[in-house]
């Protein structure tokens, strides 16, 4: 027989609904990932640049890998990171993705070669990693097969990467500095965790690790053989004479103070940075202008 619900059952039902909302089946306290922020992180981190060939990019087929990266350590080909189950990340879990970004390891526990800049990406917050993963797995799957690396064997031996990481890699998310304001910290996070500027602008030692004492001081033989400018605040050899507006013009349209426009890898970077919010560009500039000056002439 049908019995009407008694009035006092409603508060109990309400309590249940509230509890269900607080603990939606994911790790306690973690909010649902936001793929929209993930798309923004994808831009800030410049993922499309390395993980897409020029031809595919023109056709709008993004992130299926295959781009040749000619580095001083040999030739590498970026992998497919679309959700394709065979060639891409289709079988990955969120935990697999976070392990790759945070610790530089694939789902089999093998080390990634540091041409994948997990040395920077390790600094990305958990939230941004989860959002990025939510965005990546919602993208169209493209069945492009991966190309084996062409680098000399010594730079492809993954077991050598373990010791390399002990010296050149420190896992862990970015921690804001208490003695700096929110804008500076946001800039430091964007520069060091997401946009990974130092991966090109900081020179490398013979092992391929970043020389931390030469942070942002430029490199004569950057990726793809380009000389990479010194972007510390040194007046003679860096960007110490640049104004805030000079930096903003570079990041928003790619123009240098002399009216020339950047080409090469930095043109790709500008494509991404120019799509960030004006506040984020301002934060990047605020941070960059506090990087200690190092006298290092590149050309």
């Amino acid at each position: 027989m049908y019995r009407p619900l008694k009035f006092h059952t409603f508060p109990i039902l309400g309590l249940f609904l509230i509890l269900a909302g607080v603990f939606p089946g994911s790790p306690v306290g973690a909010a649902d990932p936001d793929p929209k922020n993930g798309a923004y992180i994808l831009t800030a981190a410049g993922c499309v640049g390395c993980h897409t060939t020029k031809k595919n990019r023109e056709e709008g087929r993004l992130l299926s890998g295959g781009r040749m990266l000619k580095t001083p350590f040999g030739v590498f080909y970026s992998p497919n990171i679309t959700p394709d189950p065979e060639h891409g990340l289709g079988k990955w879990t969120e935990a697999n993705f976070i392990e790759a970004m945070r610790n530089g390891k694939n789902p089999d526990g093998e080390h990634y070669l540091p041409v994948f800049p997990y040395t920077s990406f390790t600094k990305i917050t958990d939230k941004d990693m989860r959002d990025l993963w939510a965005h990546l797995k919602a993208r169209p799957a493209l069945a492009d097969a991966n190309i084996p690396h062409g680098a000399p064997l010594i730079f492809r031996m993954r077991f050598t990467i373990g010791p390399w990481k002990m010296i050149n890699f420190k896992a862990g998310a970015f921690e804001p500095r208490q003695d700096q304001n929110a804008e500076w910290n946001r800039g430091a996070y964007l520069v060091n965790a997401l946009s990974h500027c130092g991966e090109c602008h900081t020179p490398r030692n013979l092992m391929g690790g970043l020389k931390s004492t030469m942070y942002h001081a430029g490199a004569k033989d950057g990726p793809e053989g380009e000389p990479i400018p010194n972007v510390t605040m040194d007046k003679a050899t860096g960007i110490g004479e640049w104004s805030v507006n000079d930096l903003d013009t570079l990041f928003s349209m790619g123009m240098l103070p002399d009216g020339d426009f950047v080409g090469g890898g930095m043109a790709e970077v500008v494509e991404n940075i120019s799509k960030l919010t004006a506040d984020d560009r301002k934060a990047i500039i605020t941070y960059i202008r506090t990087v200690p000056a190092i006298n290092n002439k590149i050309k």
Partner: protein
Amino acid sequence: MNRLLTYMSIFFAALILMGATITPSHADGAGEIKNRQLVMKALGAHMGAMGNILKGQGGNSGHLTLHASAIANLATLAQDAFPAGSGPEAGKTRALANIWESGSGFQKVLANFKVNADALAKAGQSDDKAAFGKAMGNLGKDSCGTCHKDYRMKEK
């Protein structure tokens, strides 16, 4: 007499043919590279001067419109600054060989450059600062940046 006429007509015909091959201004690839570099330098100087004004670092904001129309003229000159035979085979240039390969998309980028430069000149005639900045950004990213990324040799 007839023979003399024949010789003379051959001589003049040869002279005319020689003239025809000399007359075009771009017979020399190295000279064409020089011309292109000067046009590009002028473009960079006007862009830089506009940037300097817009950043409030110097110059007169009333002159933006003059710089913009100069750039529109230079964009017209640029249309003829990439003749065949002025590539890396002709001398020291950072212009990449793919500029002259069919299907590389260069001609489209070059034609679009003129469209973007004209849009900037047009924006320069109004008082709308925001529209001007937008047109300049569009020209910079869509034309200058794209071309330097895909068709200019990286620095060595």
